[in-house]
Each structure stands twice: as C-alpha cells, then as structure tokens.
C-alpha cells in the first residue's frame, strides 16, 4: 500500500535518512525514554534528570503521589460507573494516565497556570479542584464548575489543541507582568498546556510552538502520548517520536515514561523551572497508554488488540509505586488502608454529590452570554419566560 510505505534509506544527498537519526517510534518508548522508577518498582538513575523534592522528605512525597494516583483513579472509576448508571452523559477516562497527570500536577507551583484538555482529572485533583466540579460538564449541568482564577486551572477545552494557544498567550502575559526570571521562587511563573498525541497534528498546536519559540514564552507543552486518538494509533500523527517535534521549532523536547510518576515529576519540574527562569518553552512527551476507552461511548475492541493492553497493564503507574513503597518498607498496611478509606469516602462524595448536582434553570441559557444582558437577549428571555409560564398548570 502506497500510503504506508516507510521512508527509505538515505544516501541521496540528504545525509542519513531521518529514520536512522531518530529511529522509528518504539513500543517501549525507545532508548530516549526518561525513567526513574521501573515497572518492577526499582529506582534507577538517569544521566540528566533526578528526582528532587526540593527538601521535602522523599518518602512522604512519594506516598503523596501514591495517594494522589489512587484517588485520581477512584475519581475515574466512580465517574465511569456514574455514566453507566445514567448519571453522566459521557466520561473521558484517564485509566493508565495517573502518573503522567499527578507527576505533572505536583510539579506545579501555586502561581503556575494550567490549560487542560477534557481528560486532566488528575491534574485537576492536584490543583485542588473538587472532583465533583469535574462531573458537571459530563453530566450536562455546566461546562466546568470551578473558578479557573482561583485554582489556576483553566476550564476543560474540547476543541482539540485550542488551549495550547491560550497557554502561550497567557505565558506572554506572564512575561509582560515581569514574572519570569526574577529569581524569586514564589513569583516566577510558568504555564503548562496539556494536549494529546492526536492534538499534535492540529494547526493550532504547531502555531503555539511558533509563537512560544518566537517570544520565548514561559510555557511547557505537556503531551500525554497515550498511543491513541480515539481509534487512530499514534503512528498516524507522527512517524518519529513526538518530543522531537520541538526540535523543528527550536526548543527542547524530552520523552518521559508517563507511567513513572517520579520521572514525570522530575522532567516536568525541570521544564517548568526553565520556563520560570526565562529560558522559554519546552516540550514534554509523557509516553503512556490509555488503558480504558476513549470515552464511555467508545468501544476500543473495534480497533486495538487486547495484547497491547495486557502488555501495558504490566506497566501500571500505581502498582509500581506500591511495590516500591512496600519493598522498601516506606509504607505500611495502615497507610494503604487509609488511602483506600479516603478513596471510599471520595466515592461516596462523588456518588451522592453527582446525583444532587442541580440542573440549570432553563432561563440560565441567557446568563453570561455577554457581561450584561443585551436588550435583544432580554427580549428573548422575557418571551421565553412568558412561554414557560404559559405551561404552568396547563400541560
């Protein structure tokens, strides 16, 4: 088949062929994958990146990650169940991406700002968003229940890639506020844009790379390459590892094991610091796997092999931390039990809270279209109110 034919060897004047230089995209993430905790739960060193908690006790931080990941997964499991029970219209599952999100989320400082996709439940958790507020969008009662300015966590963006430009512009604003490179750790500010492997093909995302590079904006492009854009495998979007996209725009890219929370934390942390220091944008490719469906309406058995899933299960982001903590005696049964109990409480909170989420009033349709209701909309609103009234007791 013509369209799938691989690029051939070089030797035609263009130097070595690109495949030689970059190597093909590899199932295991390839040799460039930054890893600090193996799937088997072993700590390993990396030449460039190390796990630096900035003085916090390491064990405690890792236990914190574990807790974050377990609770994040619970949010996902509960929401999925709520969808099955008809309480949510749809749910975008993150199963398997907990480490990527918690690693990135915990690397943020309070003043940093996050531009998420629709799947960033773990990052939301790290930003202190009440998970209940995530459900509104999927239940259809609102389009994001939290205050972005309060949490420094933007609203979920559904149009693929659009938010990467928002992040870049926001970062340009941070520059203009003089909050880059001052050396004051409590003021220097970074922005992080989340997106997926599929999104990397969108014009907007590539334009955001152009703008970020041109203005040297303090933004981290954090791509969760979960191997799939709905039914399309990653290879449809790029024939080389995605982090190398950044090279074409003149800023660094790195591929990190997105199922390794320590490595994701370390790499994101370093990238954010580069931004805060005024060194400009960085591309982080968190190499991970969407273990669930694209959303609850999707049926992945139509397009992918269960073998793949089985292989990735062995790389579970939570299991490896648990093994590590247990094997090294860094957490006892009581700890695990307490996290479990917390998760159970969270489950109750979500189940009860979800059902209690009020439907918006029909007339709220007219609210916040503009900063003030226009005369035009006032008229439509009045007409609709009268119309609704006409049914009172009638039909």
């Amino acid at each position: 088949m013509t369209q799938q034919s691989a690029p051939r060897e070089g030797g035609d004047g263009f130097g070595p062929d690109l495949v030689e230089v970059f190597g093909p995209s590899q199932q295991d993430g390839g040799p460039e994958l930054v890893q600090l905790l193996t799937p088997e739960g072993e700590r390993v060193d990396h030449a460039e990146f190390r796990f630096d908690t900035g003085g916090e006790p390491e064990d405690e931080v890792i236990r914190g990650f574990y807790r974050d990941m377990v609770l994040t997964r619970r949010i996902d499991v509960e929401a999925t169940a709520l969808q099955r029970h008809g309480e949510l219209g749809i749910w975008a599952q993150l199963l398997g991406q907990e480490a990527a999100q918690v690693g990135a989320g915990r690397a943020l400082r309070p003043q940093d700002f996050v531009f998420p996709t629709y799947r960033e439940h773990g990052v939301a958790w790290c930003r202190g968003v009440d998970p209940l507020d995530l459900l509104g969008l999927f239940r259809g009662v609102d389009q994001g229940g939290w205050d972005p300015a309060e949490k420094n966590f933007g609203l979920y963006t559904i149009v693929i890639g659009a938010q990467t430009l928002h992040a870049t512009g926001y970062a340009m604003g941070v520059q203009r506020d003089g909050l880059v490179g001052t050396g004051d750790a409590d003021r220097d500010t970074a922005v992080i844009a989340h997106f997926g492997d599929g999104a990397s093909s969108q014009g907007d995302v590539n334009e955001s790379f152009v703008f970020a590079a041109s203005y040297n904006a303090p933004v981290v492009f954090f791509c969760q390459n979960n191997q799939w854009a709905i039914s399309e495998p990653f290879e449809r979007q790029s024939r080389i590892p995605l982090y190398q996209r950044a090279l074409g725009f003149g800023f660094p890219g790195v591929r990190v094991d997105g199922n390794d929370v320590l490595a994701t934390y370390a790499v994101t942390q370093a990238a954010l610091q580069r931004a805060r220091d005024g060194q400009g944008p960085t591309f982080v490719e968190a190499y991970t796997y969407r273990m669930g469906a694209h959303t609850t309406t999707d049926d992945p058995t139509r397009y992918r092999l269960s073998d793949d899933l089985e292989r990735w299960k062995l790389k579970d982001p939570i299991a490896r931390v648990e093994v590590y903590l247990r094997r090294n005696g860094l957490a006892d049964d009581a700890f695990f039990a307490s996290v479990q109990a917390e998760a159970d409480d969270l489950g109750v909170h979500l189940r009860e809270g979800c059902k209690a989420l009020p439907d918006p009033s029909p007339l709220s349709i007219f609210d916040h279209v503009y900063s003030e209701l226009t005369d035009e909309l006032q008229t439509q609103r009045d007409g609709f109110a009268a119309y609704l009234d006409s049914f009172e007791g009638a039909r």
Partner: protein
Amino acid sequence: MTTQKVTLAKALNMGLRKAMEDDPKVLLMGEDVGKLGGVFRITDGLQKDFGEDRVIDSPLAESGIVGTAVGLALRGYRPVVEIQFDGFVYPAYDQIVCQVAKIQFRSQGKLKMPMVIRIPFGGGIGAVEHHSESPEAQFAHTPGLKVVACSNPVDGYWMIQQAIASDDPVIFLEPKRQYHADKAELDDTATPEPLLTSRVVRTGTDVTVLAYGPTVKTALKAAEAAAGEGRSLEVVDLRTLSPLDMGPVYESVRRTGRVVVTHEAHVNLGMGAELAARITEECFYSLEAPVLRVGAFDTPYPPSRIEEDFLPDLDRVLDAVDRSVGF
C-alpha cells in the same frame, strides 16, 4: 435487494458504499472513518471492503483534511470527507470558504471541485459543548458551496449519492439525532428526486411550516398535533439550503398566507431570516402574518440538561403557529 427497512445511519452507509462501487475515484477521508467506521459508524465496514487507500483515516486536523481533499479533487478524485462533529468544522473553515468554495470561480471553470463535506449536525443527543451545533447558515452565506440537509433514511441514501456525483462542492448535513432513530422503507430501484429540490412532505391549508434536517420530524409531529385541534399545517422539507428551491415554498405560502420556519440554528441570521426576507418580498400581498421563526435562542449552546429548552420543539412550533394564526 430492492426494499429494506433501514435507519438513516444505515442508509448513508449504503449510499456511500454504492457511490464507491460506482466510481473508483470516490474516496472517504476523516478522523476515525477507517477501522472504527466513524464515531457514528456511518462508514462502518467500508475500509475493510475498499481498502486503506480509499477509506483514509486522517491525522487529527480538520484544515488538513479539507485542504488535502482539495488536492485530491484537483487530481481527479472525488473526496467525501467526514467532519466528526459540527463544532469541529471551524478549523477547516478557511479552506472551505476561501478554497473549496472559490476554486471553480477563480479558475473560470477550468478546475472542478467535486467534494462532499459530511457534517453530522444539530443537537438533542445530550453531548458536551461543540457536539450539537448547526453551522448551516454560515455555509449557505458562502457562494460556491451547495448546502443540503437530509431528514430521513430514503433521502439520505439518494442525496449522498447525488452529492457525490455533483461536480460542485456540497456541504452535506446529517441530522445526527436521527441517525439511529426511525427506520424507513428504502427501495433502491426507485428514481430519486433531483438533489436541489424542496418537497412538501405533508399537505395542509392553514399554515406552511418550513423545516429541514432534524426539525422536519418536529414539524411533522406538530402538524399531527395541530390536526387533532382541527388546524391544517403544510410541511415543507427544504432539503437544499443553498441554493434554496423557493418554488414549492412560494406556491404553498400563496395558499396558506402564513409561514413558520423552524431550525435548530440560532434565529439571528439563521436560514429563517433569509426565508422570511424572500417570502415577504415574493408573496407580500399573500401574507396574512409575518413569517415567524422558531429556532435556537441567540446564545451559545447550553449544557445538555437544558438543551431541549434551547432547541425548538413541537410546542414552540405550535406556539408560533398559534401566533401566526392569531396575528
């Protein structure tokens, strides 16, 4: 087979298959149209049967999809692209309005642009933002594009084939909430009506109701309900939005003197505006009441729990009918 009961989704699938069998130059392209068969399964099984060169899973970029389809069309292919949801057509908007729509004109007819852009459109499926839009007026405002909307399985089967056979670019709107709703008897040996025609789908004498796509069903239900109250509504399925086929509309309005237009798009500058303007100009002395419009409010699409309040429904159509008659 000659006749069989099918849903709109199935009818479209059959129509696409037929078009691909009839003409090897017909290609399908879009996000997830291949192995998955599209998120609505409209292209189900087609990649399996026609291969990856003819049913093309594209990178996730709508401008890229439409822009490369332009190139394929220039090379003599007849690309049929799927936009996954109405709200995701906008990244491709530039390619559609500046390239697809203008290439024939720009080239004084030396180049053709036989492309179909399929868009599942409209709301009512309980989806999140950007999955329930009705962008038709924007395309109908763009010269060089043809814009059609099917409302039922039989039309779906024929219209998609006619759109593909057309040498002009066609925006092909599919009422997504009807995909799997009702089945209809499809006779694939019948002779279809021409693509660019409107059709009276229920005759009546008191008020003419104009609808297309998802609201045809609403209008028919309204007519049914009105009939129960002794009021006779004539329902026209517009089918083609650009160009409009005003003949059957004027003919109807001259008889009834009253018109209600209903669509899911915003009222402001929606198709109803153009219909009202034309009807008033053409049938000025026949009108007993102004053309009344029943559409979505002029606000963004709201959270889905209140989408049925936002969208026109049977009651709002009947309300407008009442207002028209009582004018």
